[in-house]
């Protein structure tokens, strides 16, 4: 019996034996490539591989696996990549619950993990680990920015809602941490819920002056479409997850004008970003998403560390990662003491460019922001 390996090997990895062996590095990417959430995983993968390709570096090979968004599959793949493929670094996971399943045992086995998307509070505070680096955001970050923006916009009683799961609880906690007003109502919805008639009725019955919602993926699409037809016209604020390039086209007009918070947008003006947006469009024939930008940054962080340290010297490699000496597409980027980002978080507005719905940055909500959990973290 032979178990095949789904191996997308970077072109130059074939020349592996010819190059300086000490610089070789093998990355395992576990991400969601099939089923409902595949769009996000595909973006992370494409962003990551674009950076790998552009670097032209020798000795880097990438093994990509599909977790089907199932935690037990993800764990099993992590075992496979570590035990069989003998990878040095793992990355790729989209969802918090999958990250919670994989990350602790990965770092416990002495491997590095670079998170291109999920940032659960548990891994930023007490459960942090020296070998775990988050290149995206701590879960609370975008919600905190939304709370800060609500203050600036003069809202004093937002109706706030999120799905009833840990990331949803984090979202509301994050918003309230920054928000100076008093929530007019607080709701937890069902995971995967697609009909928000009941929630809209409760918003209508409240005396809110604004609505903050965290409903990633399809849930957000459904909510926005239904909200637009409800006759309600309270301003909406949310994190970027419901307004990303991949799903914005499915929301359509209903999203136009909505403010959302993000650490990245395609119009951030720096050379790295402009080059990234251009080359991504050329290669994949679509606009890059937030997730693609995170995948791209993750690969570049890894490449920067690889250039200065050998992964077999863990301490040196960790120091190289901590330096974050790469051109992030989001501009300024550094790691806080818990290996989570210190970065700006912007407010974007959904606009229509020709036929395409997209975002533009309208202001900066938080400057050089880092999360509150760092204090609980000691390696």
């Amino acid at each position, binding site marked *: 019996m032979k178990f095949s390996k789904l191996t997308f090997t970077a072109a130059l990895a074939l020349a592996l034996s010819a190059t300086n062996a000490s610089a070789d590095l093998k990355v395992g990417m576990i991400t969601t490539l*099939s089923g409902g959430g595949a769009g996000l995983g595909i973006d992370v993968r494409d962003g990551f591989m674009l950076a790998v390709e552009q670097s032209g570096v020798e000795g880097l090979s990438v093994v990509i696996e599909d977790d089907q968004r*199932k935690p037990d599959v993800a764990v099993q793949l992590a075992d496979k990549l570590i035990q069989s493929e003998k990878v040095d670094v793992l990355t790729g996971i989209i969802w918090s619950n999958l990250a919670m399943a994989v990350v602790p045992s990965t770092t416990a086995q002495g491997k590095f993990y670079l998170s291109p998307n999920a940032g659960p509070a548990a891994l930023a505070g007490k459960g942090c680990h020296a070998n775990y680096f988050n290149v995206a955001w701590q879960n609370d970050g975008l919600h905190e920015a939304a709370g800060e923006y609500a203050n600036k916009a003069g809202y004093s009683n937002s109706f706030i809602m999120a799905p009833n799961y*840990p990331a949803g609880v984090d979202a509301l906690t994050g918003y309230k941490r920054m928000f100076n007003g008093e929530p007019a109502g607080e709701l937890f919805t069902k995971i995967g819920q697609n009909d928000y008639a009941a929630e809209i009725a409760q918003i209508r019955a409240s005396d809110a002056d604004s609505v903050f919602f965290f409903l990633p993926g399809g849930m957000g699409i459904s909510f926005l479409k239904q909200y637009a037809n409800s006759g309600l016209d309270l301003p909406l604020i949310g994190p970027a997850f419901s307004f990303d390039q991949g799903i914005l086209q499915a929301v359509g007009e209903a999203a136009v004008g909505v403010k959302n918070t993000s650490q990245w947008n395609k119009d951030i003006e720096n050379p790295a970003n402009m080059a990234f947006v251009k080359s991504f469009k050329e290669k994949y024939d679509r606009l890059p998403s937030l997730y693609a930008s995170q995948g791209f940054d993750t690969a570049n962080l890894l490449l920067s560390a690889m250039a200065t340290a050998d992964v077999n010297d863990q301490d040196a490699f960790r120091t190289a990662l901590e330096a974050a000496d790469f051109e992030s597409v989001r501009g300024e980027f550094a790691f806080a003491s818990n290996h989570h980002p210190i970065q700006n978080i912007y407010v974007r507005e959904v606009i229509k460019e020709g036929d395409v719905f997209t975002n533009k940055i309208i202001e900066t909500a938080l400057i050089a922001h880092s999360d509150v959990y760092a204090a609980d973290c000691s390696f």
Partner: protein
Amino acid sequence: MSRERQINIALVIVLLTVPLWAWIKDEPFTLTLCTRMAILALAGVGLNIALGLGGLVSFGHAVFFGLGGYTMGILASHAQTYSPLMESPFLIEGTKSMPIIWLIATAVSALVAFLIGALSLRTSGVYFIMITLAFGQMFYYFAISWPAYGGEDGLSIYVRNGFPGLNTLDPVQYMVLTYALLGIALWFFSRLANSSFGLTLNAARQSPGRVQAVGIRPFKVQLFAIVISAAITGLAGALFADLNRFVSPTMFSWQTSGEIMIFVILGGVGRLFGPVAGAALFVFLEHQLGGLSEFWHIYLGLILLGVVLFARGGIVGTLAESGLKRG
């Protein structure tokens, strides 16, 4: 020797040779896959008692798989943080010992199965399928909404639980442990199928009125079958959680119930080695096809469809029957 027995022996040889080869070649991941197969097969052996012998189509066996998993998760997480589960009226502490976890997992599953079974057996046929599904969904949503043990995120355990005298973190040793438990379960199943109880359960499936007419209440027999069945599936759940060092509400989902059912149907309903053959094929396909294409679910679907349409009685059933026809 019957044809089915020959198939079973062949299957045992293959399933022992693969890990042996992997162990010699130092392929720890193949061992992990074998462990996974053995645990899923164990869950299937449990379901096969209710489904195969008793004809009770439970679409809610994920409840017991999940309960086993959460028993492990909850006990181990409390042991990990040295915080007792309960202090009054009496002290209950967490544990990292597999035998204790297994005992509690089977007991909890059996108890819940008793309650669910007693209510569900009021119905029959499709209604039975659906009421068991309803109970599954209740547990699923409860697990998601209950914040104490991680909700949707689930619970991680950093180190696998211990078994006296073994290093369970070593893939080979944990695999041997699961193989041993699967072996015991298969032995138990074969004894059960030929026992007084098995005979009665089998008859209750085919003709409940007959069982009643000879003075036995089918309800009692079927309820007991569900309880035993759940206990074994619960044990498998605890092992599965320990394999992944992780539990999540996914273990309670209807897809999990469906998958356990698929192992049994794929392999052969009511056949001793049905769930083993089914789980082995499923794990094998998952890994073979996953490498072929991003859209490998299509192939999986086509293969499953092929088995239903053209290999009635599952793998073991079809092979055994074709042997009969050839004489």
